[in-house]
């Protein structure tokens, strides 16, 4: 029996893949989260009101999603409904997060796999001469920056935002700043569209080279965005079967009645399943479970996806293409939201803190994110975080098995396996800091 171990880079956090083989037969594939953050333990005894500032520190990549989910959990506990303007500003925050995350995953994490380089920040001599990659990198970082700047505009701080508060947001967005930012996004949209086009083209070239879009079996899908158009400030979760039928819809508080959560002894992250079935969250789930994106350029890309791959689409490298669709969507949607005044109405409603229980749900870039708090004597006695990456754990391991079986025979291990492992894991864009919170 032999154990192959693959350390992973170009993902968020510390993880590795272990593949156990015996005479060419793949016995197991394991995706291991190697670190333990432990926020459910650390927040015990913390004053409830301070959670929205503490929990973004779960993850510097997904901090905005945690910030908003935390505020929503407290609002649920206190029985507060934020005013409409606050919801718009929170949607902007989540769009900023989506732009930043999808641009990072597309261009920093997965583009090097398509270009055959170690990092977007390095180029080979040959590449430096023809400048293709540098041209991509420079524009990609510019688009990514828009996400960060939108988080700053709507959320105050740029990594761990502070402006979402129980009852709303702490202030509106200055009209001058909103207009200036909107112009920047409008100016950048053609660049973003071209980058996604380029990404799509070089993905096709990679598929031709490796011979597959990722040939794992169909799966169940899970998202909390709405069926008509994605809104990441979400209110319920849906599960869809491999044929495209919606088989369950439930609120955050019904999570444990509907899905199975379990820990494993080989990873610091847990995993979920739906009635024993493997699920997938993240971009492909949302693309499969929405009627349309609702903005023109993004809908153009979605139509292209459906024309080429049908719906629901299952090959795993399509996760990456769907991130491109969502990057364009988030930019277009931000332009729409920035068109109306964001400082002309109340941004918050008064509330009275009290003990109780609350559930907060948002769609993070990686899928549905739930915060669950029980408040006793004004402090957190139970803090649970149900992380999107955890919904993908079984799907990652199943796809890794398919890849392993493709490249391992009784005689040899094809060295392409190492690249395949990276491509599979990055397609799901796992976040280890979050998953081990």
């Amino acid at each position: 029996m032999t154990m192959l171990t693959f350390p992973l880079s170009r993902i968020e956090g510390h993880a590795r893949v272990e593949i156990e083989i015996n005479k060419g037969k793949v016995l197991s594939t394991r995706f291991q989260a190697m670190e333990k953050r432990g926020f459910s333990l650390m927040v015990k005894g913390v004053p409830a009101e301070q959670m929205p500032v503490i929990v973004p520190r779960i993850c510097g990549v997904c901090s905005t999603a945690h910030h908003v989910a935390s505020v929503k959990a407290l609002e649920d506990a206190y029985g507060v409904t934020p005013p409409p303007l606050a919801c718009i500003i929170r949607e902007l925050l989540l769009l900023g997060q989506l732009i930043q995350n999808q641009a990072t995953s597309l261009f920093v994490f997965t583009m090097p796999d398509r270009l055959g380089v170690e990092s977007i920040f390095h180029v080979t001599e040959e590449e430096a001469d023809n400048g293709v990659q540098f041209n991509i990198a420079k524009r990609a970082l510019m688009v990514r920056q828009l996400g960060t700047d939108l988080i700053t505009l709507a959320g105050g701080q740029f990594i761990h935002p502070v402006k979402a508060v129980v009852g709303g947001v702490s202030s509106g967005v200055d009209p001058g700043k909103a207009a200036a930012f909107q112009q920047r996004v409008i100016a950048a949209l053609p660049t973003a569209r071209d980058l996604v086009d380029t990404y799509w083209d070089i993905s096709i070239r990679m598929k031709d080279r490796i011979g597959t879009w990722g040939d794992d079996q169909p799966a169940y899908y899970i998202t909390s965005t709405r069926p008509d158009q994605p809104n990441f400030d979400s209110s319920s979760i849906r599960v869809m079967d491999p044929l495209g039928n919606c088989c369950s819809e439930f609120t955050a508080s019904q999570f444990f009645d509907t899905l199975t959560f379990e820990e494993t002894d080989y990873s610091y992250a847990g995993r979920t399943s739906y009635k024993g079935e493997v699920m997938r969250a993240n971009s492909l789930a949302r693309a499969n479970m929405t009627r349309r994106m609702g903005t023109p350029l993004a809908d153009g890309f979605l139509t292209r996806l459906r024309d080429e791959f049908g719906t629901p689409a299952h090959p795993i490298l399509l996760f990456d293409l769907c991130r491109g669709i969502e990057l364009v969507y988030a930019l277009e949607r931000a332009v729409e939201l920035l068109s109306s005044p964001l400082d002309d109405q109340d941004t918050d409603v008064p509330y009275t803190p009290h003990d109780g229980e609350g559930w907060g749900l948002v769609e993070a870039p990686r899928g549905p994110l739930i915060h669950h708090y029980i408040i006793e004597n004004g402090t957190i006695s139970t803090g649970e975080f149900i992380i999107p990456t955890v919904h993908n754990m079984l799907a990652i391991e199943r796809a890794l098995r398919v890849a392993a079986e493709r490249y391992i025979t009784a005689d040899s291990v094809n060295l392409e396996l190492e690249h395949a492992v990276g491509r599979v894991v990055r397609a799901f864009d796992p976040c280890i800091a979050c998953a081990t919170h």
Partner: protein
Amino acid sequence: MQPLTDSPSLKTKQLPQFAVLQLSGCAGCEVSLLNANEWVQEFELVYMPLVVSAYEVPCVDVLLISGGVRSDEDLYNLKRAVRCSKKIIAVGTCAISGGVANLGNRDEVRELFMSQTERRDLPRLLPKSQPVDAFVNVDLYLPGCPPTPELFMAALFEDDEFNPSKTVCQECGRKKLKDMKPKHLTGFQSGEVLPDICLINQGYLCVGSSTRGGCRALCTRPGHPCVGCRGPSDLLIEKDSIAWLESIQRVFAALTDIPLEEIRESLLSPQLALFLFQFSDYAATGRPPRPKEKVL
């Protein structure tokens, strides 16, 4: 391999190399670094697993270390990485003081940590999360949760002209009023904030008056009280935590009618404690304070 560069002439220039070692943390420091791009043409990034496929930290001119030492693997990687690096910079609150991870160092939480985290074949957790300089020498401290891109650049480029204000308060620009004296603290996050007026006048527990400047007051200007993530200003950094507490209390005494006991109780709440004691924790452990010359 060549670093990414705009001009062909730079391609042949020998650029200083830097690496980023991420221990247990949230990657927010790395994301902040990616938001700065001035380094792209001046440094060659040779190791940073978040964005580069490389598995060993090579000898570099500058090694940035983020995150706290939480597991035996963190400790091993830290000690290996520093062996041949010329300059070591600890970045972010976790690497410098343990940061938010200090919440897990409370005794009652530590017990849960150690009892619930047994795993087969994975790095083992150490009894406590510890700062980097508990194990290795650090040449420069760059505090912040996370440090802004501007601060990262000032550290990387050793920019002598970067001369930020001493405190967050001086960078904030909100007006302090003598005749607006709240009688009690406003909730930590209680909705709308009046523009342009000091948050302390509005009853918020803001510690910007004693917190190190350099962040451009990016939380307080949009209306969120400073939680002190950059640690104490130069005036307080070499003193113990009592001096810092007293300094904050004096500011509240001048600007508000809030009872002293109420301020003290709130300052010692777990959430502020993450940051409040980040440099002073050494008083209790017998280690010397970090010299202010080494803190950016």
